[in-house]
């Protein structure tokens, strides 16, 4: 596989960059997310986290039973400030 193989398409994170991160001693999905930006784009990791876990397992950095996605951040999908401003939100009702 080429060094230019993309793992995270939103943030252009390549396989070579994942290996660079591992070589610096960062080995968990939370650390790799923060060091490379993987999973911080429009899909918020939905496309890439599974693939990242697979790579970590292949590299011996993660046991399959321990594979977990990083902390999910709301909203589930991108929402405009306008629609959030107009909505009567459940936890704001008296």
């Amino acid at each position, binding site marked *: 596989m080429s060094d230019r193989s993309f793992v995270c398409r939103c943030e252009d994170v390549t396989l070579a960059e994942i290996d*660079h991160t591992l*070589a*610096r*001693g*960062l*080995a*968990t999905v*939370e*650390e790799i997310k*923060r*060091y490379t*930006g993987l999973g*911080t*784009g*429009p899909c*918020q990791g939905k496309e890439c986290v599974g693939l990242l876990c697979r790579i970590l397992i292949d590299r011996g950095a993660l046991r399959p039973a321990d594979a977990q996605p990083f902390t999910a*951040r*709301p*909203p589930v999908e*991108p*929402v*405009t*400030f*306008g629609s*959030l*401003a107009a*909505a009567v*939100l*459940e*936890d*704001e009702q008296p």
Partner: protein
Amino acid sequence: MSPKPGTPMGSASQPLPPAVDVAIVGAGIMGLALAYHLARLAPRLKIAVVERSYLVSGASGRNGGGLRMQWGDAGNVRLMMESIAECRGLAQELDINLWFRQGGYLFLARSEAGERRLIRNAELHAEVGAPTRLLSAAEAQAIVPQLAVDDLRLASFNPDDGVVFPWPFVWGYATQAVRRGVLLRTHTGVSRVEPRADGYQLRLTSGETLQAQRVVNATGAWSHGLNRGLGIRLPNQPHRHEILSSEPLKPFLDPLVVDLGSGLYFSQSTRGELVAGITLPDAADGSDTSLTLHSSLRFLGHISRTLTRLMPITAAMKVLRQWTGPYDVSPDGDAIVGPSPGHPGFIQVCGFTGHGFMMAPAVGRLLARWIADGTAHPMLTRWDPGRFAAGQQSRREDMIIG
């Protein structure tokens, strides 16, 4: 340029010796900036940093990345002038891109009280030498054309203030500290600190123990637990703050904007995202003074209404992600730094009330000097942890945002 492949910056498997000269608990920006400067000033000191989770897991990885000189207290203005001056050469010094961008901070006053604060601050800043200037509504709009200014009474602007991307600061200090011999152990907590005849013994969650002549508590909002174990009573406590980022856009917003009345702040990061937070009334369940870092829909609704009123153009922008981080709140709004009451070998660097990240470049350097050769800088001694018991709280910094 990023560090060379393979350059370590601490790990869960970093071996620790039985004893060190200085043990720093907490590898946030404060602990790591201190470790880096201490290793430079006193290369013979054996220094270990112990972090309970991964780097940037705490407040250093969760803040909005703002750096400003615009404070209500002359000491804080001076300190931040030093910190921002230090940031200008820091990317080269740490050999990492910090995404530091000086687009200024624009403060907005929509009430008479807010107007008075900005006028008083601008006079203070002029005395200290910070280039803050007061702006009319039209002048503020010239800097941010999308701003709604119909009820704007006055604005203040300091062009030297700016934003950074917080994460690389932490990695840069970590890498350079490790390169200078600092032992950085991650994913290892300190469960107890026990006084010994010659310093302290740290019991680690890994089952190991570490002896240290001096210990620094750099755990911010988590500092209470370690202090309590030693019988040190300090009044700082955690407070939850939420923040969000939008989808990335082309650069359109130069300054970080703060609306004094609502506590709304927003800036555009160098990645292009709008990063925004706001003062949110505490939830009724008491969770806001805990360290539970959950996100709320209440925050999203509140900030969206305020932001779209102030910047109508944002109505069409999309929120990508929201998260939470803790402020380590001190009752007078000022930090808690120096030897602890009754424990001169147990040094605090806590209580920064939401502005520790921006102050760390200067505080790390000054505190390292204090620990290395005993030179206590007045910028730090005014933050004496003993001031609360002695009843010497003289004022409250009133430019706490978010």
